[in-house]
């Protein structure tokens, strides 16, 4: 029995991670780089599928080369073009590496690394979102949607790894995964809505001391949820 992550969840997680990154990094150059990296990861998945169906074929090494070439060319083009400001790198860089890590975890390059690579990928995507919030004037709504999508990508990817271990990639798991992803996205939507509603009340006008108190209250709330 193989314990590789299930396909529907893997695809969905990668899509969500890409969406999260694209929401905050939305200049044409950034989108171009993201598409190039996604194409590379997609080629890897296709190569893996072909290699599984026809063991001993030469498609996997060839596609690996093509994928690496595509990703390399895209990155190189961006560097040489030099059209990205440091702030744009700060929001795009972690996201791109995160998408690659997620892809490698779900491929998987190694079954025992899946969980850690998916968590690393999710964390990097979220780091990119936080970076974007720091350096750029993107609207809070974009930021929140990107954060929700990043968390959902991590959650769906983790679920794909878990179901891959419990049910196997050969089993039909799409329904269960869609329900799970639907629940997570719904929760994300509620979170975004509530947070935006709170934001419009106007925490911007609070003093730093007030903000600190609010933060303390949030920490106590979060802690109480876990103890």
């Amino acid at each position: 029995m193989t314990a590789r992550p299930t396909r529907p969840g893997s695809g969905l997680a990668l899509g969500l991670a890409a969406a999260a990154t694209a929401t905050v990094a939305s200049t044409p150059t950034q989108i171009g780089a993201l598409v190039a990296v996604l194409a590379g990861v997609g080629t890897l998945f296709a190569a893996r599928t072909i290699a599984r169906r026809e063991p001993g074929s030469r498609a996997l090494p060839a596609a690996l080369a093509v994928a690496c070439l595509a990703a390399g060319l895209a990155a190189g083009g961006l560097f040489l073009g030099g059209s990205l400001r440091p702030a744009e790198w700060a929001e795009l860089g972690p996201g791109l590496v995160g998408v690659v890590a997620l892809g490698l975890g779900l491929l998987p390059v190694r079954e025992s690394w899946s969980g850690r690579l998916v968590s690393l990928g999710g964390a990097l995507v979220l780091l990119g979102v936080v970076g974007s919030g720091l350096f750029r004037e993107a609207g809070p709504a974009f930021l929140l949607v990107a954060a929700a999508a990043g968390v959902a990508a991590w959650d769906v990817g983790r679920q794909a790894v878990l179901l891959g271990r419990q049910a196997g990639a050969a089993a039909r798991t799409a329904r269960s995964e869609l329900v799970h992803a639907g629940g997570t996205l719904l929760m994300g939507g509620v979170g975004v809505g509530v947070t935006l509603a709170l934001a419009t009340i106007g925490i911007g006008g609070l003093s730093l001391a007030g903000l600190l108190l609010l933060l303390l209250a949030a920490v106590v709330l979060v802690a109480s949820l876990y103890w």
Partner: protein
Amino acid sequence: MVALALVAAAVALLAKQPRVLLVAGVAVAYASYPHLTTPPDPSLSLDRSVDPASPAPDEPVSVRVTLRNDGDRTLPDVSVVDGVPALARVVSGTPRHATALRPGESATWTYEVAVDPGLHRFRPATVLARDASGGTEVETTVDAPTELDCPTARETRPPLDPTLPFPGAVESETSGTGTAFARLGEYHPGDPLGRIDWRRFARTGDLATVEFRERHQAAVLVCADARPAACRGPPDRIHGAARCLSGAGRLVAALADRDVPVGFASLGPSLCWHRPSRSPAAVAATRCAIAAHPALDAGYPTDEQRDEAADGDEDGEQAAAPREFERQREQLRARLDGRQLVLLSPLCDDFPVETAATLSAVAPVTVIAPDPIDSDGAGAGGRLAAVERTNRIARLRGAGVDVIEWERDEALPAALARSREGLAR
């Protein structure tokens, strides 16, 4: 999620960027998600149909499983692993399934298994139900008793004869017809002329009858080594003890077919004992007991688990177990009563060697040794284990015990036939 909330909040505070603090709001929402969903309380029923129910050996059997949510709450995330019989092989499809079930809804999936001759019993299906967030997981089992009876059809047996190549039937102590001289008895009118000792009559004038030892078909006791130490084998393959039990099932069926009184015993957490008998009811009961043997259950303590447990607490249990097995050996010795013993053991440790050597003093013993080691995938540890096992076989042969090696991926009759050829040569 808590980490994300704290990181976002700290970054926001340090950079004085309220927008980043909002990210913490989303994180807190997600952190509270598992607490908003109620833990699942699965109430499920399983229906399993097999076609055909009495398959020929290696014939694909289609298994159709239907899982139904009998509760009144939706189960958003249910993973099921059907309880495939321990000695069955899944040949197509997968016994695993994951789905979401509304109240009253059911999910159906099919897969195919193939079995060796014998009685195979499906085990309860294992169900993992999670709530929508995946925060809590409930494990339960659903049972639907199903059996596969793969007959050892007479016409399928030759040319592979599953009976023992060592027909070392014990010469009985009672005298009668036979070939080996037993004693001279008093002549009774009506004794066959050919058996009267005429030389003695010429010498002394007394009539005496030669009596021979009667050749009885000796009862055979099939004994399987189902101790946790025998539950070794490559991952995802049936382990040594399970192969011993499968072989024992086939031997019992084959010997009973030939009208040989056959009994069964297994060494394990407790001694399982079915006294040798020729009656079909007793043989059927014995075969059922083998099919439902606890060593075939998923929860049976294997040696690896016991090693882990022993790491925690000191070796109190470790020391107690061998004494229990020695007690079982003594019981076996007392009940053996001169019957032929066939011991199936993967020979993973020295205990079966000692057992066979000890018991061979009181009864003829044959050891059938399934190979539990996957020589291709095994590292240095596997090679060492293989050498140790070869040494054990050599020691047994040196002690005058017949050993039949049962290779991995070999059917038992083939192993017996191979050994029979080796003897004839």
